[in-house]
């Protein structure tokens, strides 16, 4: 029997509610190996232990990889071009999301500081941090 009693986030909908209405990035931390993840599951994807506890992810981080999409999927039809980004959050955890204001490669760089912003539509949305707001 899987012991998921430590996990308060029982559904994917809990994560999505975080992005959409609670304005927070939810995550899990593995009590065994300390992996932090922003993906729903019942056991740790690194060590396999079913001991995940809820973990509040930081809303700030840095871009580790990105693309500017010219051909979007159905859900983002009117938003292209936009950036799809992989962000390493301060304090742990890696999250993917999109940046509507990034319209060209020259608008963003790897290493750039960004912050999570609650969006006008579903999904994890990031914005560039203004220079003065960097840590």
């Amino acid at each position: 029997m899987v012991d998921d009693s430590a996990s308060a986030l029982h559904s994917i909908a809990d994560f999505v509610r975080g992005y959409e209405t609670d304005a927070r990035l939810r995550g899990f931390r593995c009590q065994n190996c300390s992996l932090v993840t922003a993906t729903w599951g019942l056991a740790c994807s690194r060590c396999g232990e079913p001991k995940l506890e809820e973990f509040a992810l930081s809303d700030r981080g840095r871009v580790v990889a990105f693309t500017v999409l010219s051909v979007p999927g159905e859900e983002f039809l009117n938003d292209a071009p936009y950036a799809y980004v992989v962000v390493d959050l301060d304090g742990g955890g890696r999250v993917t999301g999109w940046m509507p204001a990034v319209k060209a490669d020259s608008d963003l760089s790897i290493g750039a500081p960004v912050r999570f912003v609650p969006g006008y539509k579903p999904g994890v949305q990031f914005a560039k941090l203004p220079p003065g707001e960097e840590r």
Partner: protein
Amino acid sequence: MRETWVVGAASTRYGKMTESAREAATRVSMEAIRDAGLEPKQIGHTFVANCFGLAEHQAHVGPLINNGLGIPEVPSVTLESACSSSSAGLHEAFVHVAGGFADAALVVGAERLSHLDTLAATSYFSIAADYPFETKNGATFPGLYATLASAYRNAFRTTPEMFGSIAIKNHANAARNPHAHFQKEITMETYLASPMIASPLRLYDCCPFSDGAAAVVVAAKEVVHRPTAEPLVVRASARAGAVTDMQDRPDLLGLPSTRLAAAKAFRQARLEPKQIDFLEVHDCFTIAEVMALEDLGFFPQGTAAKESAEGTTARDGKLPVNPSGGLKAKGHPVSATGAGQVVEIFEQVNGRAKGREVPRTETALAHNVGATGGSCSVHIFSRR
């Protein structure tokens, strides 16, 4: 385990099909069975891949294919492993035949998406990613591979021309392959002038949406008395999985499932990469061919793009890669792709790859990835 052979193979031309995936699958299955010198009734189990069958309002297509082959009593199952669906089918067929549960098995993959517009086809592809955590956050299939390309180009010294050389090579091979979707060569100027789809991936870094069907027949050596073609001995049939989400991968510079499947396959085959004569690898994007060659152990990390630019992976190079034209230019009818790679190896070994022959055909490897690497198959073949 019984020694298991690929004894027959057939494929449609990739591109735009007017007939349904079901019809094309049935047709290539009959051709592959006849190519093997067998009768349909000798098939003990059918493994079908038709990932996006719902786009044609058809599920449970296996029994329909078997009906069409005149063998409705034969069991079938449809497997889904995204772009690696039919190589997953080949693995299951191998397990059945090598394990003695069937003497011969049919593997067929088919896909038809050309009746959809680009937006609908892009959306179908993107549901093979993590829908709530990737697709709903802005990812498309090219977008996910573009993200990997971004990390790779940031980590290693490469040029756009190095990636262009992969597209040019694969188009040159496809131009000599009657099964290929694209049968024209391209130049570096064409490559560099093509529009960005998802930076840094240009149009000519990307495989097309193709329709197509491919089938192979595998059989136990002990029941094949007189092979009608030179069989491929299945030296290894290995699969592996890995964390699917980009956000759960500490390493964005390769696909862990390829590394795992390759390690298993080389161990099973008791071979090393330097003993492989030619490869069909999963190049849905040019970056995917680069990562495949490094993850499979053929080149050190960070060097495969340069090797391509220097001609090492050309048809007449030291290590021919994707003589068929690959997914990039032969085309990518999702569920047919894995079986289609084996069709190419079968044709090369049997002297049917006229105009695109590779110099040595004693051993070959097929590498097929599901989506962005959540699953991977590696098969190694040799002559008898």
